[in-house]
């Protein structure tokens, strides 16, 4: 037995299987190249076009793969690469589709946001690198790749949050994000080391196999699993690793907030789903009932996020807390997983995946709307938003769509995703999770509708002349996100079916 188990991998096949990731890397490099070749040129347009093209091509490839059945049971199942350290399957592609969609929206929106920026290339490349790392997170099949890709995603994110170097809020946000992130990374790494200590492997399927033999190291494994969970909780902004989120989302440039709260959160769930579903399922009976753990955390996260959001005065911060609340909903997807109930697990996890996809659009749209407001320089509080609906009806209407969809009104995609999540939970016997989810959703309607109220119901208080400028990219991104959010209600079928099929494949 060799010390490193190596299976020969065709590089070409690997590259094509990881097509989206490759495209993202290349476009990131292209952005850097453009900037290096003409460092003094105001090349925002070119950079944005490159970045947007990269993300859209990556998205296109992902969707194509999804439709073509790459890595899915239809074409022979998951594609295992690099000795099983990476697995391209439906779930990975599904999440990659989320990341690339969000990234594309954010890139398009950033075009306007960075109009006056001195060095947009750094922004785009950081964004693309983070997206690249996320696409890797979605396919990581070993705790090693999980850790590395997760850190690769985090590091550009820290920089992006603190991107506005001279803005105290941005720097403070970056600092807090970084510090909590560093601690979480350390906890995560320590957890991985403990899991390794108990099982002797980092490959997820091997860990699952090894857990059956763990006897006296069960405690070590348990601590390890809890700490690994901590790493994911950080990434998904769930209690108790959520502390960075309100400040990071509030202080960061709004497109970055959009990116982090949608794509980064989804990425955290992507790895969490895979790791817990593939590696730690047997641990449910042996070491730690992590279903219960996530159940408790889901409840606390839903309650904290939604209640704290209720009385915010700053819209962005409200959205930040709501984002925490939504992490709580998605956690149901992990909490309701039970040993040996494959179909149900697939239902609930698929619902969580679908929720993250819908959330990706509606939440990104919401933050991009805030980016638009920031661009106009109107202000950040609810009062400042008063009467914007009069001056910017299209964008405000889109924002209303996002808010109602986030609240789970059955008019838009957000309803079905949340509903199927609760349905899965109830089916799995976790009716109390669904109940808490329902109650907090009801509360969320209050604070989401406050935004709508400010936009549409209030009379303008301040000077809204700035709204005369129409940032095209931001508008386009917001409207596209809005339209997709609306269309996801009638068109939810393919989404949920894909998600459930992908989840089922993971549990199979």
């Amino acid at each position, binding site marked *: 037995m060799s010390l490193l188990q190596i299976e020969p991998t065709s590089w070409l096949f690997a590259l094509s299987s990881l097509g989206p990731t490759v495209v993202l890397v290349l476009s990131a490099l292209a952005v850097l190249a453009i900037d290096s070749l003409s460092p003094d040129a105001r090349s925002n347009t070119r950079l944005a076009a490159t970045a947007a093209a990269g993300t859209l091509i990556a998205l296109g490839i992902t969707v194509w793969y999804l439709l073509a059945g790459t890595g899915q049971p239809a074409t022979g199942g998951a594609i295992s690469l690099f000795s099983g350290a990476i697995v391209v399957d439906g779930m990975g592609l599904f999440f990659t589709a989320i990341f690339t969609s969000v990234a594309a929206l954010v890139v398009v929106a950033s075009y306007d946001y960075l109009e006056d920026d001195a060095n947009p290339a750094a922004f785009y490349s950081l964004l693309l690198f983070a997206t690249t790392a996320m696409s890797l997170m979605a396919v990581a099949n070993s705790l090693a790749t999980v850790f590395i890709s997760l850190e690769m995603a985090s590091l550009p994110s820290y920089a992006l949050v603190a991107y506005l170097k001279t803005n105290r809020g941005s720097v403070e946000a970056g600092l807090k994000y970084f510090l909590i992130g560093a601690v979480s990374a350390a906890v995560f790494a320590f957890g991985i080391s403990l899991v390794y200590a108990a099982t002797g492997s980092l490959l997820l399927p091997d860990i699952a196999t090894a857990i059956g033999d763990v006897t006296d190291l069960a405690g070590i494994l348990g601590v390890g699993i809890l700490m690994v969970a901590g790493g994911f909780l950080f990434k998904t902004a769930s209690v108790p690793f959520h502390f960075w989120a309100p400040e990071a989302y509030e202080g960061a440039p709004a497109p970055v907030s959009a990116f982090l709260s949608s794509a980064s959160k989804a990425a955290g769930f992507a790895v969490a789903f895979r790791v817990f579903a593939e590696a730690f399922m047997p641990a449910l009976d042996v070491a730690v009932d992590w279903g219960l753990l996530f159940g408790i955390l889901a409840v606390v996260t839903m309650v904290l996020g939604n209640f704290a959001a209720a009385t915010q005065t700053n819209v962005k911060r409200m959205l930040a807390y709501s984002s925490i609340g939504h992490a709580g909903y998605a956690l149901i997807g992990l909490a309701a997983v039970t040993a040996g109930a494959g179909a149900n697990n697939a*239902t609930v996890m698929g619902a969580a995946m679908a929720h993250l996809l819908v959330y990706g659009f509606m939440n990104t749209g919401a933050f991009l709307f805030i980016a638009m407001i920031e661009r106009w320089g109107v202000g950040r509080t609810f009062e400042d938003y008063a009467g914007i609906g009069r001056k910017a009806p299209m964008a405000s209407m889109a924002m209303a769509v996002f808010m109602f969809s986030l609240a789970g009104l059955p008019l838009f995609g957000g309803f079905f995703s949340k509903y199927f999540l609760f349905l899965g939970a109830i089916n799995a016997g976790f009716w109390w999770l669904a109940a808490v989810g329902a109650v907090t959703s009801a509360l969320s309607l209050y604070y989401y509708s406050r935004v709508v109220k400010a936009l549409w119901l209030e009379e303008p208080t301040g000077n809204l002349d700035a709204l005369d400028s129409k940032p095209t990219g931001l508008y386009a991104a917001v409207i596209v996100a809005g339209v997709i959010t609306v269309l996801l209600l009638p068109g939810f079928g393919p989404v949920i079916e894909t998600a459930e099929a992908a989840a089922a494949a993971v549990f199979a």
Partner: protein
Amino acid sequence: MIIEALLAFTFAAALLVFAVPNRYAHKLAFGLSLVPIVGSLYMWSAFEAGGNALTGGQIAFETVAPWLEVAGYQLQWYVGVDGISLPLVVLTTFLTALAIMSAWTPIDDRQSQFYGLMLLMEANLIGVFTALDFFLWFVFWEAVLVPMYFLIGVWGGPRRKYAAIKFFVYTNIASLVMFIAFMALVFSLPVDSFGLPEITQSLAAGELTAFYGLPAETLALVVFAAMFVGFAVKVPVVPVHTWLPDAHVEAPTPASVMLAGVLLKMGTYALLRFNFTMLPEQASAFAIPIGIIAVVSVIYGAMLALAQTDLKRIVAYSSVSSMGYVILGLIAFTEFGMGGATFQMVAHGLISGLMFMAVGVIYNATHTRIVDDMSGLADRMPVAVWILVAGAFAYMGLPLMAGFAGEFFIFVGSFGSTALPYAPVFTALAMFGIVIVAGYLLLAMQRTLFGPFRLETDYELTRAPMHDIAPLVALLGAIVLLGVAPSLFFDMILDATVPILELGGGL
């Protein structure tokens, strides 16, 4: 396909109106809103179905198409009408057009958005009354709230924001309660779709199973109670009615018309469709509490109306009172009780619409609705005032007007009810509402419309313009027509409600 055509047209009309400049919006919206009337009248004339859509009767204009499938459940696009829903569809189209017309004077800002929202609401209301798949229905059900939220919140009175949010959150929470309850019910049934007929028939066949340790009987009771609460908020009945006066007082006239005229009927419609059709035995188990709720709503609502000094608030509380009759009719579980309750939905829709519109016309002229601020208006705006008087009498249940028909059917149905213990007592108590309603409406009319002319606000009172009066006249005409010939609707309503009784095992 007529229902689809109706829905598609109305949605398209809403989008179109959103897009046109403000100054064209009113006429365009009114013109467009006439088309759904024609559509619904065509449906009425072509209506041939018999029986109740849910209990296995014929469904008119039925279409079914799969929507999406999840967790073993098929969600469908499933629409159709029967004798219960058709009158409500007609009511919706009719009232929307009139409400749009009545908006001419009061709405002078952001017209295209206003009318667009009105049409959007109409489309969703049609959807509510035609949808036969639970999810489809629920989408429309909730979608109705959003336009109303904006209509109140943007074009409303001074406390409009409070009222709008209260309305919105309150009713949404209620929907949530109902939704969860219904889910629990469906999950305990061996069905593979959310089609309401399938669910109803499965329940009728006694296929309900236990739900997480909750025995089927208990589950059915809990679900009934939760759904009742959920719908009761929408109706609304005491004690979950407090959003209503706020919403009504702040809402602009056309929105009030729609709110009282159609939106409240959604609650009673849903009660009839869900609670009373699907769970008749549980209904009879809860008969006494529901009877008490009905009677308290009638009497207490009327007493509250008596205490008000704002004309709109008076009419608003009287809606609570009138809806109490509907609940009484439903719980009676008799032919005339249920049929009367359904009829009363339409009748009250027209009458409360008329009242709100008439009060609105007065408000347009006087800019006040406070009883003490005015008197003797009949002198200055006779036509509007006398129509208001006619409306008030309709509200009091004057024979040969629609309200009397509805109320009498309910009373005559519930008096001899066997499903409701002490039915004669409940009925007699509820009927006392007709005295109180006369009391507060007459008192308010005497103080505002009659006596020497006096107005506290600085407005020159002139006769109400034609476009304000026309919808009032149309409504009054409809009220009298239905009062003289209730069987226009009542026959088809009975056709659809009698099977419910049969399903309930002759309760």
